[in-house]
């Protein structure tokens, strides 16, 4: 959501996720979201054998090509700590449920959305808990909070999407996490290798060949000669 003063760590987290789950086209001509759906067939990233902070880290380094997100180490540890154990169980379950539905190929309505958006908002939560997950559909419907089943919506261009909005109720900075591991410990044998993220290759910009100075001056001299000749003929 649009904040007046940019919070770098928030921006990095949301953007890396938005990119990973976007409808931008990768090097193979498929969207980044569909590329992730393909990978999901081999590894169920959001089941109980996976830790959310580890999955986030793997998704993020796939997008950045290796750099951890957020860049600031203190912010990163605090973010990992939040995902690892500070989120209310209902929020944790809702995140896992919604992303599983979005990545599955079981024909559920969310399994075919074009993209997913991730954002945060400081608002009162309906439960009174510090955090709540809102699907962006209808703020008056209790069903849209902490629900493991996502509600697909349509944007102004007719594209379908799901929104994951982490709402924060309490005015308190995220807890420090001095004992947190960076990068997070791997989830063992359930991990099936790096999560692919095939960036399209940028087309090299072709610069027009430089004309050599000698050639240029020779051309100029020839032109001058020709001009002189025609002038003489006219006389």
């Amino acid at each position, binding site marked *: *959501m*649009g*904040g*007046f003063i*940019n919070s770098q760590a928030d921006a990095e987290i949301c953007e890396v996720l938005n990119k990973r789950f976007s409808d931008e086209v990768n090097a193979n001509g498929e969207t980044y979201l569909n590329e992730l759906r393909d990978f999901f067939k081999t590894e169920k990233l959001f089941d109980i054998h996976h830790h959310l902070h580890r999955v986030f880290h793997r998704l993020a380094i796939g*997008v950045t090509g290796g750099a951890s997100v957020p860049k600031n180490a203190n912010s990163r540890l*605090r973010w990992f700590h*939040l995902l690892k154990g500070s989120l209310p169980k209902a929020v944790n379950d809702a995140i896992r449920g919604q992303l599983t539905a979005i990545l599955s190929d079981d024909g559920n309505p969310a399994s075919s959305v074009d993209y997913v958006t991730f954002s945060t908002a400081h608002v009162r939560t309906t439960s009174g808990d510090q955090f709540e997950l809102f699907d962006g559909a209808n703020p008056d419907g209790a069903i*849209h909070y902490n629900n493991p089943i996502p509600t697909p919506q349509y944007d102004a261009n007719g594209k379908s999407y799901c929104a994951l909005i982490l709402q924060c109720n309490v005015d308190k900075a995220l807890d420090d996490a001095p004992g947190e591991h960076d990068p997070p410990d791997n989830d063992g044998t359930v991990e099936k290798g790096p999560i692919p993220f095939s960036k399209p290759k*940028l087309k090299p910009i072709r610069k027009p060949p430089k004309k050599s100075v000698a050639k240029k001056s020779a051309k100029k001299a020839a032109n001058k000669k020709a001009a002189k000749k025609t002038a003489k003929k006219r006389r």
Partner: protein
Amino acid sequence: MLFSERLSERKLLKSADRLALLETLIGDFRKAFPDLKFELQLDFAVINAQAIALGDKRIVAIYGGLALHPELGAEALTFIILHEAGHHLAEGCRSKRDRSLACECASDYWAVTVGTDKLLEKSGRCFRLRTALEELDPIMGPRQPRKERYTKKASTSGCWAKGWSLRRRALFERVRPPMIEGFCITYV
């Protein structure tokens, strides 16, 4: 917003004058832009404001850390609220995090052109940009440092919103943002 800075309790300006100013200001905005919901969230000490789209509800939230900031006066607060309203009402380039919202530079441009005019017309509130920018300098300068390369290399949009000095100049000169459907700032 999870990592936004907070203003310490002792710095919050909770005088009767400030609260009256905020009420008048919000009242003017409600008159000028009745389709938006303006909320003062003074219990949050976050130094920020936010445009939030919750379903059909278009909310502008101003948090205590900004609303009660001792260095900000009426002009800066007016600009901040106009900018947030611009996220909901401006056309052109979209925000990466929520495509129903305008991006930062489109919101800025709307704020100092269409938004300013409409606010004056509907509520009579006149807004002085120069004063607003001077009030914002000490707040925004350290928090939005200028970076050499703040847009993606391949980007053609030329978004300025990440560096305060560029943003300030663009606001003052009312530089038109690119009217493209795409994304400008990238952080990763």
